[in-house]
């Protein structure tokens, strides 16, 4: 008896695209993947790894340049229609019509798939129950929250039970609670109903939930197997180091990144987690010996990435220096007066309260994080702090003044990097810097000096003449930060600076933040990557416009500590806090 063919099999698949600039991009470069029946496979990798292209090929929406893609044992090129009749596919952004109600979206897809009569009604009932969208059938899809949209998209895809379900980044931009619910639904589909699922994600912590992980990077598959195999790559090579007393974990982490024999270092619960090139623990002067710890998927992933990243690392070394401004030694005294002070801050849009009595203080040289799902009120708070939006109520001072009420000159003291970076795509790197320097009123030798500083400091020399829209992702972020730092602000606001960046670029980014904070710059940053909270001195957890907790990352994690959860992750702590808040505040 021959075993059943795999549900998805790719052999030596190559797919290239031509960019507008004429260069050829190899989105898939000789991909071999095999997913068995009833498997839940997670497709993991940074942006641009080729995940979406692979899913689109499997769905028959694109054709490979060469190689074979077989789905359900059929050649997708020849039998696209019969394959499509048996699979489900949810594109990024869920494929919903915003102008149609929940019910109308379901009706449309049911009609498209030819699901009628009693089976249709039964299916509706089941899907609405599963997604808990029953009470919202008349609401327009565009008015749903990210998490609800994602569940509706999934329901539309499942209107006809598929044998294979392809989900393209279903959890992007969705809050952790909704992410967990979605994974519960997916897990139930696989184990309870025998559906095979391939789901792509940029969240590394989601991979262990799957039965199989496909790690992709730059069009190549780096690993394909049980998630544990990826974890095991780092077995015996993961340690924790306690920083010297008085030293911030991120300071030690930044230094350890450059130490020989260390692949990765991240701050974790006040300690620094390191991954080494071999199993001998590094000896670090003046520090307690490292303690060995359990490896995670991320650790293995970083080792895999490191093996392909030698080139990029050289770029990083060339690009990164300690700030030219001599770092002044800062001791964070609790008595130090706050640079940013917010009391009872309220912002209403019509009858919707985006920011609801928010209080926090940030001291000089502190890195303060606002952590929360999309739509929690982070960006609105930022805009008020930067004086771009008037507050509906409450007090706020930034460097001693309310920027909305004082003259624009006070804004000289702050730097702001907006979401998606406010750069001029058609201008070159140098022209962008020149423009922002003029906008901040820099002139003459100071202007020249600061632009030179920015190019040197952020490693932009090789790209100086390139227009900013053509910069690789990580460099766009560098340029945006450079532009915001030209006028040497005391306070830096960064709104989701790492959104869409791959783990290495994010690590690079946080290294800069660490250096800036050591130089005395106060940094306020928003993020929805829970693990990034570890880089902050203090974080505020914000949801539905309210701050529910405000403390150091280590203390917040302690709150979620239970017997069955002795070492909660930042995400678990976040879920604990937000769920408690939502229970108490229905």
């Amino acid at each position, binding site marked *: 008896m021959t075993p059943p063919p795999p549900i998805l099999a790719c052999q030596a698949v190559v797919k290239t695209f031509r960019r507008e600039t004429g260069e050829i991009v190899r989105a898939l470069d000789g991909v071999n993947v095999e997913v068995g029946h009833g498997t839940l496979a997670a497709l993991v990798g940074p942006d641009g790894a080729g995940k979406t292209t692979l899913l689109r090929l499997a769905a028959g929406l694109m054709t490979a340049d060469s190689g074979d893609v077989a789905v359900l044992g059929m050649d997708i090129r020849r039998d696209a229609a019969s394959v*499509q*009749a048996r*699979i489900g596919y949810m594109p990024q952004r869920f*494929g919903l019509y915003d102008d149609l109600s929940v019910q109308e979206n379901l009706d449309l897809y049911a009609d*498209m798939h030819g699901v*009628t009569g009693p089976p249709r009604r039964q299916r509706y009932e089941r899907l609405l129950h599963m997604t808990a969208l029953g009470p919202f059938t008349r609401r327009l899809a565009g008015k749903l929250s990210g998490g609800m949209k994602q569940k509706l998209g999934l329901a539309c895809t499942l209107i006809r039970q598929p044998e294979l379900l392809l989900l393209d980044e279903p959890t992007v931009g969705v809050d952790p609670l909704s992410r967990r619910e979605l994974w519960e639904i997916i897990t139930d589909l696989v184990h309870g109903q025998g559906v095979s699922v391939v789901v792509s994600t940029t969240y590394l912590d989601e991979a262990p939930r799957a039965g199989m992980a496909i790690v992709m990077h730059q069009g190549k598959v780096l690993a394909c197997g049980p998630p544990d195999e990826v974890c095991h790559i780092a077995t015996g090579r993961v340690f924790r180091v306690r920083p010297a007393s008085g030293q911030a974990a991120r300071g030690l982490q930044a230094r350890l990144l450059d130490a020989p024999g260390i692949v990765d270092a991240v701050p974790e619960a006040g300690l620094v987690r390191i991954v080494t090139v071999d199993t001998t623990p590094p000896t670090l002067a003046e520090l307690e010996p490292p303690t060995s710890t359990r490896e995670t998927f991320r650790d293995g992933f970083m080792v895999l990435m490191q093996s392909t990243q030698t080139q990029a690392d050289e770029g990083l070394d060339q690009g990164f220096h300690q700030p030219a401004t001599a770092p002044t030694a800062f001791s964070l005294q609790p008595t130090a007066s706050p640079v940013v002070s917010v009391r009872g801050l309220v912002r209403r849009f019509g009858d919707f309260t985006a920011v609801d009595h928010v209080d926090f203080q940030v001291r000089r040289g502190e890195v303060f994080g606002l952590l929360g799902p999309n739509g929690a009120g982070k960006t609105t708070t930022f805009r008020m702090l930067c004086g771009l939006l008037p507050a509906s109520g409450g007090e706020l001072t930034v460097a001693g003044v309310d920027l909305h009420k004082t003259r624009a000159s006070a804004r000289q003291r702050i730097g702001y990097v907006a979401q998606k970076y406010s750069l001029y795509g058609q201008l070159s790197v140098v022209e962008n810097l020149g423009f922002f320097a003029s906008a901040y009123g820099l002139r003459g030798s100071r202007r020249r000096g600061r632009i030179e500083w920015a190019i040197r400091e952020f490693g932009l020399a090789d790209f100086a003449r390139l227009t900013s829209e053509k910069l690789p992702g990580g460099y766009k972020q560098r340029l945006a930060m450079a532009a915001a730092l030209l006028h040497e602000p005391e306070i830096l606001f960064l709104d989701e600076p790492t959104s869409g960046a791959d783990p290495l670029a994010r690590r690079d980014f946080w290294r800069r933040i660490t250096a800036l904070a050591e130089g005395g710059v106060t940094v306020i940053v928003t993020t929805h990557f829970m693990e990034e909270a570890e880089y902050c001195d203090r974080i505020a957890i914000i949801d539905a416009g309210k701050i529910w907790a405000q403390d150091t990352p280590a203390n917040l994690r302690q709150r979620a500590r239970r017997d069955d959860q002795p070492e909660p992750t930042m995400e678990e702590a976040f879920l604990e806090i937000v769920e408690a808040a939502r229970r108490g505040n229905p």
Partner: protein
Amino acid sequence: MRSIAEIFVTPRARRIWALIRKESVQVLRDPSSVAIGIVLPTILILLFGYGLSLDVTSVPVAVVLENPTPRATELAAGFRMSPYFDATVVTAMPRAQELMVQRKVDAIIRIRPDFARRLNGGDTEIQVLTHAIDANHARIVETYAQGAVAAWAARQRGEGKPVAGAGPVTVQNRLWFNEAFDSRYFLVPGLVVLVMTLIGSMLTALVVAREWERGTLEALFITPVAPDEILLGKTIPYFVLGLIGLAICLLSAKFLFHVPFRGSLWVLTGASMLYLLVALGIGLLISSALKSQFVAIMVTMLVTFLPAMMLSGFLFDLRSMPLAVQGITYVLPARYFVALLQTVFLAGNVWSVILPNAAALAGMAVVLLILTRGVTRKKLA
């Protein structure tokens, strides 16, 4: 949760109906569709119907009456009474020149002191001096002046007074098809072209590109829907919307602006449907190729709306354009549609004009729809 779609027997019919219904709901709910499909045409109609008129009325002129003989006075009175002029009668040329220099008048009509005597001698001359900075305007004023003189001459003849000789006095100026010489008569039919172009090309290009941008087409492609079903689902609702726009234009032409309608309504509707198909074809083709709302709207604006306005004969006479530009107009569907519209509205069913223009539109519609069907595949790249 029953839907009307369930009464359709075949899955194919059910899918097409579901797409049409979806599209219609979207048009009704989306303010930008309503704006382009209904509000903009209405504004255009009111703007062109009431505000923008190419007619010139109440032109300030100075009539120089140097010797007020009865017949000369009558001529001057002709100018004073005409709705086209706002005439100031002066008795000496220097005063008139002064008014002209100050731009208080746009023209000087000089009736010479020997007017009456020369008239009898059959050798009349009236001097018309126009302020010619705006050449177009000057030409219109000149024509009006000739008209006013001609009207005076006709009245004189009617009263049995001899008006002999050639020259401006005997100008014969007849206006065919637009006897009232009212620009609304050709502007309002021309509006049908703009409205059909807006709905057919721009709105369609916008909504298809939007589906590409939002990833909804990607989700539809995975369903059993066929490419021609997607096309029909897009074409039919906007075809109907275009016909509604047509009805708005025709009703306002007839009842608001009293434009004569001499041809058959069926011929007009048929021609409009043909043009609508061409416009839809262009819109679908552009949006399938470009897949971005912003670029699609810019390109449709450039290749359909602006040419329909400038190069279709709607605002400017094609024959007075340079040859090269005239050549370009032959590839523009709007040119044929404008010719059809103006004929059907103002001249009647002139088959020698209708048939070739309709044939050109039909040919374009077929080519475009075949091309559109060709580029619409259930593939992303």
